[in-house]
């Protein structure tokens, strides 16, 4: 009889012996090479070998990974918070052979330390109903291009890329060094029948961040004040009748400089630097190029230890725009609730 409210599997049963023994008693770690972490505790060392994963994986892939873990890790492994695979190796001897086999199987080892790790991303055209772009595809294209930085760990600091296919931002891209965000750019096309059938009108009206939606009682539907709509798509989440996808005008915005950790500087939001790039599948060359440009600028100019946003904040955003050559437009200036705090209320600035 299947149980209700089982809860998740007990993690304690999944810990390799070395982890059990060193549990809560780890003393320090070292980075023997990119992609490998050595954690040391009283009971000895654990070697974690980190491999990239496409995240969207088939069961046979998982089984292959399991086979590797059986062979080299006594059957233990974990995934990271950025969807990498970590093989948990107790026996140092196994590290090199494991790495070789991983690479041979197309599981690149890397992503530790001051590198570019896996992209946290979302569903896109693979499974969601509101995407402005695909997520897995851009991720693949961008990481192919940045591959060397997954393999190296001598960048100024970590660099975290996230990708969200619409403003719901399931990838929580809003606090990433580089955020790729799918954006719609046209007013929802209303299907009044669908609205009448499937929607609670007051909730639909209330859901619009800019109050662009007005009830239309005569029609038992709604109208949209077009100038007030900024295409967030929240109304589509509320109602199947508010079609927001637009093949011609959907695309990708790039925001940069976010950071979650509290190390040195406070966590900060990512900020828009490129308001729009077209959807150009299958490899989104405009996006990969823009990301590359920003990453290389950071590597060339940041100080040791500086995250992308820390670097930009030190030199100033106005300097970032002049250095990068990215054009600054009215679209870069916030006009939503907290805009005021972004206005430069100081006569001191650079050119």
């Amino acid at each position, binding site marked *: 009889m299947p149980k209700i409210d089982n809860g998740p599997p007990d993690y304690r049963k999944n810990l390799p012996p070395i982890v059990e023994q060193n549990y809560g008693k780890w003393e320090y*770690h070292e980075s023997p090479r990119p992609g490998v972490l050595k954690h040391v505790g009283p009971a000895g060392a654990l070697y974690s070998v980190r491999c990239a994963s496409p995240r969207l994986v088939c069961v046979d892939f998982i089984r292959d990974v399991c*086979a590797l873990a059986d062979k080299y890790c006594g059957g233990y492994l974990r995934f990271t*918070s950025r969807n990498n695979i970590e093989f948990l190796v107790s026996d140092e001897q196994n590290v090199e052979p494991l790495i070789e086999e991983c690479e041979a199987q197309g599981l690149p080892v890397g992503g530790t330390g001051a590198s570019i790790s896996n992209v946290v991303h979302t569903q896109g055209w693979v499974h969601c*109903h509101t995407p402005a772009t695909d997520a897995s*595809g851009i991720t693949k294209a961008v990481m*192919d291009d940045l591959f060397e930085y997954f393999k190296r760990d001598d960048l100024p600091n970590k660099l975290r890329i996230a990708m969200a296919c619409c403003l719901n931002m399931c990838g929580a891209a809003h606090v990433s060094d580089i955020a790729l965000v799918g954006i719609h750019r046209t007013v929802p096309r209303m299907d009044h029948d669908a609205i009448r059938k499937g929607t609670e009108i007051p909730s639909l009206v209330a859901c619009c961040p800019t109050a662009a939606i007005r009830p239309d009682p005569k029609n038992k539907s709604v109208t949209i004040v077009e100038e007030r709509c900024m295409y967030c798509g929240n109304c589509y989440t509320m109602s*199947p009748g508010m079609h927001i996808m637009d093949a011609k005008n959907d695309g990708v915005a790039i925001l940069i400089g976010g950071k979650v950790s509290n*190390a040195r500087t406070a966590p900060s939001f990512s900020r828009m630097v490129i308001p729009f790039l077209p959807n150009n599948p299958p490899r989104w060359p405009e996006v990969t190029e823009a990301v590359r440009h920003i990453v290389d600028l950071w590597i060339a100019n940041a100080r040791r230890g500086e995250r992308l946003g820390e670097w930009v904040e030190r030199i100033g955003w106005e300097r970032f725009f002049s250095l990068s050559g990215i054009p600054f437009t009215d679209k870069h200036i916030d006009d939503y609730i907290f805009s005021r705090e972004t206005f430069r209320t100081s006569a001191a600035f650079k050119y």
Partner: protein
Amino acid sequence: MAEKRETPQLDELEKGPWPSFVTQIKRAGEKNAMADDLLGLLETSYEDKVGHWKHGGIVGVKGYGGGVIGRYTDMPEEFPNISEFHTVRVAQPSGWFYTTDMLREICDVWEERGSGLTNMHGSTGDIILLGTTTDQLQPIFDDISDRGFDLGGSGSDLRSPSCCVGPGRCEHACYDTLDMCYDLTNEYQDEIHRPMWPYKFKFKMSGCANDCVAAQARADCSIIGTWRDSIIIDQDEVKKYAADGLDIQMDVCHRCPSHCLTYDKDTQELSVNAEECTRCMHCINVMGKAIKQGKEKGATIMIGAKSTIVKSAFMSWVIVPFMKMEPPYTEFKEMMDRIWDWWDENGKTRERIGELIYRLGMGEFLRATGIPAVPQMVYRPRANPYVFWQKDEIEV
């Protein structure tokens, strides 16, 4: 699956060194008709640059109000095998630690009853089983339940809590993130499985201020490990770092946000003005063998993170600077109950806790939940004099 599909667009995404999701779909598609249809649908999206999934519908399993995302394609004629293609969210074990046996169990169920495609893992942390038909949902649940798994959250409920690797593999963990995550997930089974709130609610636990699970960016309640006393410096180890060529003055002291570290180049001694340390983790990150956290450990509780929609993205902010964080986490749970009650009573539909506090004010939130106001809650006090005076503060 008769003929091999033409997918010229997607084929391009099998090139290059990064592992390809297209290869994964194709591999699944070799034995699974759903996966193969997905490939075709995706190729179509790549051609016409729009998604081909209809607005989600409600599907589920017995006894649960969430855990499954309903999905139907708008091209059922062309791709009949994915006319229904629902996602099942399976709660992950704390820290995503697995035995290979467990993983194979999931694979077996999913090979049999679904597309054979998964996300390891979803952004919230669940195991995502990507695509199955309505009639398979209950059997899938029954099967995974038998194997010791359970559904995760979806809808207006508590989402599957997640945590950093913590004491399982990290010297910086200030409390047992893995245990707390497991404990809360079990404690709140009802809240996870039966949506009853204004909107979703997320917990994430990080063992220290590095916040490796990005809790502060995306968990309505972020529990960040910290300590209350002074960092501990081992001068011998300091000398070793110096000998190894670390520029302690520049890379450690200069970057310390409160400038509370002093390095004496001559004696190679490092000292700290402990009172001024904000426990940001920077110096420990750079020279962890020489600098350790204090001994009085616990966590900072923060509230409010969420992404952009509706009122802007929020990051979590401090509501309790320091709380001991030990099982059974009674103090924490009692506080959460008060917070949820208040949210439940005051929140509008689809209003996250952070947005509600923003709308009604921290003052009202604190008075209602009995959490004492402390300066750690804010970067700086208010710039306006718009204070809501309370009845008992006024002379009549």
